[in-house]
């Protein structure tokens, strides 16, 4: 079974973000970029499926600027076999990404597609579900456990208040939650080997997809600073305020 993994280049999770002074977007000049953490988990899961003999090939794909090839190389170092780069400098929203990925799915015919549940930049949490809709495939989102049994996929999902287990027909789309696995460290010889693994560059035009978004980003602002509230004089007063003013306890 071929496994396709879609990944995204995002600002490194350690980096404090800063809004541009003209409020047009977040300032990405000079900041460290990295693979989205949920995507790392997706790559790791695919590689584990290959190590278990379930997957035969792991193909990793990204949509983004030329520099996103760094993240593809990281995925290759972590164990993916080959990479596809859909190169664009546009700001790609989830629907555009899902459309491009649907074309790749059509071409590659994977038995399973794994994506991160959301990217830590836009926090959309949409692409996997949209890809499932566009390809007509079932979806197992927010997965914390994945197993292939008798040609079907058993996926345990992190839902509000607990876990839910589903069985899906294959091919299927899975999005990863944090507890699915602990990604490995890339080994130095694997990083060297990754430089020689195949990386195919595609364009939205040759895939025949339109990436422009109909959701416009009008403004990006820093969150409102929290204002200091009031000091209360006693525990009694505190409980009274919480019950009757803030109404957060009963």
């Amino acid at each position, binding site marked *: 079974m071929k496994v396709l993994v879609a990944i995204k280049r995002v600002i490194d999770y350690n980096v404090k973000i800063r809004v541009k002074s003209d409020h047009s977007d977040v300032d990405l000049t000079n900041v460290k970029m990295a693979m989205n953490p949920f995507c790392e988990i997706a790559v790791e899961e695919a590689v584990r499926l290959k190590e278990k003999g379930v997957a035969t090939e792991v193909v990793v794909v990204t949509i983004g600027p030329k520099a996103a090839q760094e993240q593809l190389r990281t995925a290759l170092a972590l164990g993916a076999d080959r990479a596809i780069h859909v190169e664009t400098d546009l700001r790609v929203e989830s629907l555009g990404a899902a459309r491009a990925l649907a074309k790749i799915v059509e071409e590659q015919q994977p038995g399973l597609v794994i994506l991160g549940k959301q990217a830590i930049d836009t926090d959309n949490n949409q692409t996997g579900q949209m890809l499932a809709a566009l390809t007509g495939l079932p979806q197992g989102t927010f997965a914390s456990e994945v197993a292939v049994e008798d040609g079907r996929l058993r996926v345990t999902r992190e839902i509000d208040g607990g876990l839910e287990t589903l069985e899906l027909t294959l091919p299927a789309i899975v999005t990863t939650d944090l507890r699915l696995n602990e990604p490995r460290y890339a080994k130095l010889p694997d990083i060297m080997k990754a430089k020689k693994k195949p990386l195919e560059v595609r364009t939205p035009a040759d895939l025949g997809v339109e990436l422009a978004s109909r959701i416009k980003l009008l403004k*990006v602002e820093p969150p409102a600073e929290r204002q200091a509230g009031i000091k209360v004089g006693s525990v009694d007063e505190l409980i009274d305020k919480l019950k009757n003013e803030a109404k957060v306890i009963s």
Partner: protein
Amino acid sequence: MSILVLAEHHNGVLADATAHVVAAARQIGGELHVLVVGEGVAAIAEAASKLDGVGRVLVADHANYAHLLAEPTAALMAQLADDYGHVLAAASTTGKNVLPRLAALKGVGQISEIIAVQGVDTFKRPIYAGNAIATVQSEDTLKVITVRATAFDAVAATQSDDGAAIEAIDFVADNDQSTFIEEQLAESDRPELGSAKVVISGGRGMGSRENFQLLERIADKLGAAIGASRAAVDAGFAPNDMQVGQTGKIVAPELYIAVGISGAIQHLAGMKDAKVIVAINKDEDAPIFQVADYGLVADLFEALPALERQL
């Protein structure tokens, strides 16, 4: 155009979140319908019909809709969506699972987890884990939106005795792709830190691991999760998985009680989105008071037992 709200429900009960999403829908304005999807959901539909501002309740009650699996639920909603200008759902694991699928079926974008309505097509939403707020505008004719429930005050129940009209939907979406196997709901008395409605956290001021028990007893009474600052974790008072902050968990409960926590920026990064923050600290200059809605300057070893007694 009218607005369709997908009802959120758990264990046969309409979830509070629905009333919050209805509130967001009312801010957009227009005829407002609630869609209840599931199996055996008549009582839920009844409850939804009593929400203030709801004009009609649509009910799709069928075995195929049990557990609101994404494939049939999105297919059903795609059938209905053409009559609406907006489709809204809570940004719960259900809403997040179904609505993007619906949007793509209709060929439109989706706007996730809005926290404010600026107009019929313009919304505010947090990005970068709440470290920036984006204002986005949808140019699609159909707007598919998930709503952060805590950002909108819930609508009350309607004053009139009869609720909105309830209408059954006959359409049944086939589903041979996904099968529900089982559900394991957390049974712990103590909710999970990441999703708890109330969190009580201790800092280095707690003084020792033993003293954290003072928090546990209050947490039991409030049904709260327990957190810790990094200083408390580093000092060995609490395990690392309890850490709230930049390098720990990011929480946004309705009530966050910080006890003996000075409020270093690294900690604030993990809890500043809480709806109400309470700080108890004996140092009145502690930075935590700059973000607290209610501050109590007190010795925590006196304040905590008093709090426990009076809750």
